[in-house]
């Protein structure tokens, strides 16, 4: 069929030319009068007009089609997907050269094959003639598409092959094994997993669930995905904004340590909870609701409060600090940054939301426990965690291996960051810590859980973790939508990812 379609084109064009040649060749009769001068002038003018139109068109076809305004306006051209035959599209590999996307021939047609399928759907995205592109296929389209030669060189397929040798694959910072492990660990639950290397900003894995299979994009499935209330087409890691809950407490601690607040201060954490000034509603610890007859933690210092994630304690601290330093610290840690993984559009994280820095004490108390108009994407929180793990040096995330690593920006004072680092080991290492499930033999892990209340039902389960704690090579952030408690729902996922990272050699690398 393809051969026929190719041949018929040329045959029809030849027939057209033959027809015109038959009409054009009109012999002048022998005795005809000579063409007068006036008519010759006129004929030349008319022929000139037609010729000018033809030449202008030829010029546009071959030259202007490669001009800057044309390229800029190209996304308005529905042919873009068609002309960019996937057979010419570059393959994509992970950081060790293992294939992520290949172009294969299937039934005489070139199709994109996504090696990890749904497990990496929200990184790779999809490439489809009718449904367009998403994810990496969209964001890095200009690097993945190889442009065909100008039209006149298309005549010879072989010549074109010689002119355009198979292009090198595009290498991502993703680790294929880790990506697969993260997707498996999260399973079918709604949520997201982000794994980063904090020193270089390398994105090692990015999972959003539920997902779709980019190998199976077609009309029926696409409609089904669009209509699905769980929204599998949504990349939760970049475009999902969630209240951070207790995972915000390290930011509050950083804010406190940066002020003149005395780190030796103890606040009482009792079963009655904490009543902010001018408020009626008490803020309670999560144990108060879970265990009957719970007697409270008693007076706690910062490390103990961090370990057991005491809401009452942090609410009191927040009210003592006021909202301004907390909001300022969050801003400094890149809370509202629009992190750009690669290219344009699709692989850009939404900026987090922060309340204003003028709040009533009650709202300040809720801000200090990660609620009240406070929202962040899983990638945004991973960036905050990476900055903490990196001793206050902020490195923007990257997805392409050939993207230069920008110079880190020191956003937290180094001494403060060191204290925070040891503080964040408390929930994992200390007795009664909420993140004790993250302990790994032989590796110090830092982490903080969160259970964020939200208007949709059960709390969102969060955990942020990094290891090895003193010199982190891997940062993991897990979100399970409405998973309940962070310790119960998110920590096992993060632990599985950390185990996979250790198996892949990431945790030993720093030693």
């Amino acid at each position: 069929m393809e051969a026929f379609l190719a041949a018929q084109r040329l045959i029809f064009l030849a027939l057209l030319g033959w027809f015109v040649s038959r009409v054009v060749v009109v012999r002048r009769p022998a005795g005809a009068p000579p063409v007068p001068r006036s008519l010759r002038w006129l004929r030349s003018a008319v022929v000139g007009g037609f010729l000018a139109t033809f030449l202008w068109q030829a010029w546009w076809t071959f030259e202007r089609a490669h001009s800057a305004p044309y390229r800029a306006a190209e996304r308005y051209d529905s042919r873009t997907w068609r002309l960019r035959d996937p057979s010419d599209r570059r393959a994509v590999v992970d950081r060790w050269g293992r294939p992520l996307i290949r172009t294969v021939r299937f039934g005489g047609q070139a199709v994109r094959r996504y090696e990890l399928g749904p497990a990496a759907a929200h990184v790779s995205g999809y490439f489809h003639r009718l449904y367009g592109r998403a994810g990496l296929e969209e964001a890095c389209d200009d690097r993945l598409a190889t442009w065909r030669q100008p039209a006149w060189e298309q005549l010879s397929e072989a010549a074109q092959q010689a002119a355009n040798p198979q292009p090198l694959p595009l290498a991502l910072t993703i680790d294929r094994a880790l990506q697969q492990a993260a997707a498996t660990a999260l399973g079918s639950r709604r949520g997201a997993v982000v794994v980063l290397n904090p020193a270089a900003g390398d994105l090692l894995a990015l999972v959003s669930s539920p997902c779709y299979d980019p190998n199976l994009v077609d009309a029926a499935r696409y409609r089904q995905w669009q209509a699905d209330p769980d929204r599998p087409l949504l990349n939760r890691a970049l475009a999902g904004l969630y209240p951070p809950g207790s995972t915000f407490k390290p930011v509050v601690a950083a804010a406190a340590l940066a002020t003149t607040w005395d780190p030796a201060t103890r606040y009482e954490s009792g079963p009655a909870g904490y009543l902010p000034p001018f408020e009626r509603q008490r803020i309670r610890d999560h144990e108060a609701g879970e265990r009957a007859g719970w007697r409270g933690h008693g007076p706690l210092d910062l490390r103990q409060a961090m370990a057991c994630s005491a809401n009452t304690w942090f609410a009191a601290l927040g009210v003592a600090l006021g909202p301004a330093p907390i909001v300022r610290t969050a801003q400094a840690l890149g809370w509202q940054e629009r992190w750009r993984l690669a290219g344009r559009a699709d692989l850009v994280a939404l900026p987090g939301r922060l309340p204003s820095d003028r709040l009533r004490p009650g709202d300040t108390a809720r801000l200090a426990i990660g609620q009240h108009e406070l929202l962040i994407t899983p990638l945004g929180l991973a960036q905050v965690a990476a900055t903490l793990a990196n001793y206050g040096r902020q490195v923007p995330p990257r997805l392409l291996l050939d993207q230069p690593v920008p110079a880190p920006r020191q956003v937290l004072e180094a001494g403060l960051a060191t204290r925070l680092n040891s503080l964040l080991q408390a929930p994992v290492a200390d007795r009664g810590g909420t993140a004790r499930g993250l302990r790994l033999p032989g590796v110090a892990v830092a982490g903080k859980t969160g259970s964020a209340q939200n208007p949709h039902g059960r709390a969102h389960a969060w955990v942020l973790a990094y290891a090895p704690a003193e010199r982190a090579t891997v940062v993991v952030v897990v979100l399970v939508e409405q998973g309940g408690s962070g310790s119960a729902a998110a920590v096992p996922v993060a632990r599985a990812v950390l185990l996979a990272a250790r198996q892949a050699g990431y945790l030993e690398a720093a030693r």
Partner: protein
Amino acid sequence: MPRRTERALLGSALGLSLAGAVLVAVARGADLLALPTGGPTLTFYQVLGVQLQVAAAFGLCHALLAWRRPRVDQYVLPVAAALTGLGLAIIFSLQPEQAARQVTWLWLSLALFAAVVGWGPEPALLGRYKYLLGLLTAALLLLPILVGTEVNGARLWIRLGSFTLQPGELAKIALVLFLAGYLAEKGELLAAEPRRLGSVAIPDPQLLLPLLLLWAAGLALLVLLRDLGTALLFFGTAVVMLYLATAQLGWLALGGVSFAGGAWVCGQLFGHVRARLANWVDPWPKIETTGFQPIQGMFAIAAGGLGGVGLGQGLARSIPAATTDYPFAALCEELGLWGAGVLLALYLILVYRGLHHGLRQPGRFEALTAAGLGCLLGFQALVICAGVVRLIPLTGITLPFVSYGGSSLLTNYLALALLLRCSEEPR
């Protein structure tokens, strides 16, 4: 055997037309990934049926010519058939349901063609009513202003029940007939003793007055109609006919200058025309609004390349009004530069045939009519094609014989019939 050339050429043209339509149907059938919002399509047999109807209609016309008018031009009808066939293939590709309607219009057009060629009055008789034709031109142009509907800022259409007609199309033919009649009578006088202003010859103002009046009236009407394309066409044709009748270059110069002046005035006066001029110079910043159509057209042309993407495989449906204003861009995409060159050559042949007959008996009404009509059809194609490739500002007129549209097809075949009558060789 009479009209062997025509028979052979017509056979080839109809073969091309059939092949084109079948290729569209095959490509569409094979194209599993056709756009989901492609609209209704025709089955393969419906396409075949349409093409057989076309072949039958043109075959009948050929038989009629062989019977009633064996000595008229033999090249014009096959060229028109080839253009119509190409047009149908393009319309099949763009809007299949319109192709079926276009065939109905083709039957009507060819019936009119047959009536005029076979049993119409002697052309010379028409020449006697030249002033009436002049009035008719004005009346036809005025009609839509009085009872017309406005489409895209131009008042060109009148609505009759479910049909919309464009009287301006008919006015073009009336104008050619009027000019031919007038110039056949006064042409020699216009050329005889010109006054000279430097090297430019200026004819006697008394002879010029009726013509100037018509020009002024025409320009005024076109300003009211706000259609630059029709204005360009009218002036071009009138200037060429004057030039043919008098053989003086001064007319070409005068025509060019007066049209440029008229266009400038139009550009100053009307936002509609000014927007088109701005669109011509740089449509890219307005890609989502007024620049959308021309840029989609440019995309289509660029996609075509040298040999096109193949019939039925283009995506020119994305161009607004593709079947009426932009079939040239669609053709460029599907048949490439080569196909576009063939199309332009076919129109050039029409002009050449018209001029050829205009040459035979210079100054006679029939000769002037033939030349005028040939130029009219060719120039109309040139104006829209040059507009689509952005050589000149775009004007919304149809591509003769190719565009979808009833009144356009009817008047084009009427012009063709008159051209053929005027091309009859003396016994």
